[in-house]
């Protein structure tokens, strides 16, 4: 079943065209990797999917679960199961990690017509999901990402993802900044969240992550377009031959 269908997507920021016709279809149960040179538009695509207002969509469409995704506010997308793990998670002084997560979970539940999660259940879930990504409990009560190390921030992103249980998880370079052990743990966490009903888009520069989170499809993005797609072996080939090779053969 098609979860996400992107057709001819163009987007710009401050009069600069960045996405120049992206086509991508992601079905439930799949993992898609997106690779590509710096500045090719990978984060832009991720942010447009999450609903960041600074990016103006100038053409194309995005259908998510049969609905026009671009019409929805960022929080509505989240309530319907879209999650973006940021390349650069934001530090927010004065907002506690836990309070904010609980608000986020309960707003989603209310929006879906479900009962709010009580304090006890929430804490139980926190304990369980923190274990999944081996997150230091001391970080939970701190202010959101404030003073977190680069790796701790990334781990916190995946912890939040595990708490929110998205249908479409978009991981924007979650691997960069993680040490080797952390990479394995975080990838393991993602794998445990995988099911036939959800899907992941994993943006990365390194084939190594894909050893742990094995993709069904690998895409190469360059200059605002997906110029090549292939099986997981494409990632290996890229690592060996570099992007110029793809550009020449695209």
């Amino acid at each position, binding site marked *: 079943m098609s979860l996400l269908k992107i057709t001819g997507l163009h987007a710009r920021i401050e009069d600069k065209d960045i996405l120049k016709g992206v086509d991508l279809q992601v079905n439930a149960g799949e993992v898609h990797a997106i690779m590509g040179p710096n500045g090719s538009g990978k984060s832009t695509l991720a942010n447009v999917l999450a609903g960041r207002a600074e990016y103006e969509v100038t053409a194309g469409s995005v259908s998510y679960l049969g609905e026009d995704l671009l019409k929805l506010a960022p929080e509505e997308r989240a309530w319907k199961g879209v999650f973006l793990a940021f390349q650069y998670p*934001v530090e927010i002084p004065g907002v506690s990690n836990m309070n904010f997560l609980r*608000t986020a979970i309960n707003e989603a539940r209310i*929006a879906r017509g479900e009962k709010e999660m009580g304090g006890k259940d929430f804490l139980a879930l926190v304990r369980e999901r923190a274990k999944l990504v081996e997150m230091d409990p001391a970080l939970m009560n701190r202010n959101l990402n404030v003073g977190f190390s680069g790796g701790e921030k990334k781990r916190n992103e995946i912890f939040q993802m595990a708490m*929110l249980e998205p249908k479409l998880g978009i991981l924007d370079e979650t691997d960069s900044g993680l040490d080797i052990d952390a990479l394995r743990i975080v990838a393991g966490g993602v794998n445990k969240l995988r099911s036939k009903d959800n899907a992941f888009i994993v943006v990365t520069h390194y084939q190594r992550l894909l050893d742990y989170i094995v993709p069904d499809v690998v895409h190469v993005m360059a200059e605002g377009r997906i110029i090549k797609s292939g099986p997981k072996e494409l990632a290996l080939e890229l690592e060996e031959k570099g992007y110029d090779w793809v550009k020449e053969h695209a």
Partner: protein
Amino acid sequence: MESTMILDEPKAAVLALLEHSEWPEAGQALARANELPIPGRRTEQWKYTPVAKLFNKSYGKPDGQVPVELPARLPFPATRVVFVNGHFRADLSDDLKTDKGVVIDSIRHHLSHGPLKANYGRIAGIGDRLFTAMNTAAPTDGLIILATKGAKTSQPVHVLRITTAAAGNSPMLIQPRDLFMLHEGASLEVIDEHVAIGAASASLVNSVRESVVGHGAELTLHLLQNEPDGPADIGLDAVQVAENGHFSVDTSTLHGSLVRNDITVALEGSGAHAELNGVYLLNGNAHCDNHSYIGHNVPDCTSDELYKGVVGGKATGVFNGKVYVKQDAQRTRAYQRNANVLQGDLARVYSKPELEIYADDVKCSHGCTIGRMDEQAIFYLRSRGVSEAEAWRMMSHAFVAEVLERIENTQWKEHLGRMMDRKLEDL
């Protein structure tokens, strides 16, 4: 162009109301009030807070005996003292004679007593401040608190000042006048809450409070202005702090049609400390002006100021913080910061730090910022499923939390936090 002649005319009608008062020094004060011009846009200290309109109407004398329904008590123990339209209401107040060595009473009962005579009018000199002259010319009533050597109150004093909608809706001029005196080692905590019942926006509350903080004494004031549809609220806190004395105040303005808070602190003995904190959350047509003056008059004193505000709608926030360091006030430490978040295109903030330093061995810092809420942070929260409005509230709360964190009384801090959250819901 403004001319004093034209501006002076409406003042006469207001001042007529203040004649024949028997308060100390009333005659001179009235004469001075007649001389002083209404501050206008060209008066530096009042530039952004237009008060001329307060003199364009005729006020009546406040009625203190109107029946009122008291708001709910604070969620923690406090001795409540109630003033209605400036008049002390013993019938609505708690028993005020509970703590040894502490006198809490209507100031009217003490006008002929020695301690009052020794200090009244001395801390809040009139200078060229018209509102002080008016207040001194004919106070309505007020609160006197005397704490003898080493005396402490067992719980905070909660002063509830209620302004009602006047009968026939004619505006009232209410002039509260307080005197707090803390002798050596005494300590006192006062919550001063202004509330309005009904449409009281045409009235004017012009307050003056003098506080003397003795050697090693400690005075903590929590001021709360929570008056939707409330009166214009012009107030002066004049404080004198002796050696090793400690004065701290937090001013929270959640509503207010026209609010002006003047705080003047004179640090008169080495080791004296003043801490001024403030939060203002403004929307609609609210106007809040926090003006402070801290005089470091002797060596080795410290002061610390932090004011933060979120200003939306067509509201205006004004901050002016003057720190004056006398030539021989060496080793002064004075810190000051004002930070503002503007929402929308019609809100305004004017912020001005003023340091005047004549000593050379000092550490002073000041900073002011006026900005927008961090869009990236808002997007981050929304992308996790926090609605835009809630994300904005969270960020606003986080922004002012730094001020709340400075409040030592945790019960007050939590109560205030909840009230602020409620206010943020409609910002």
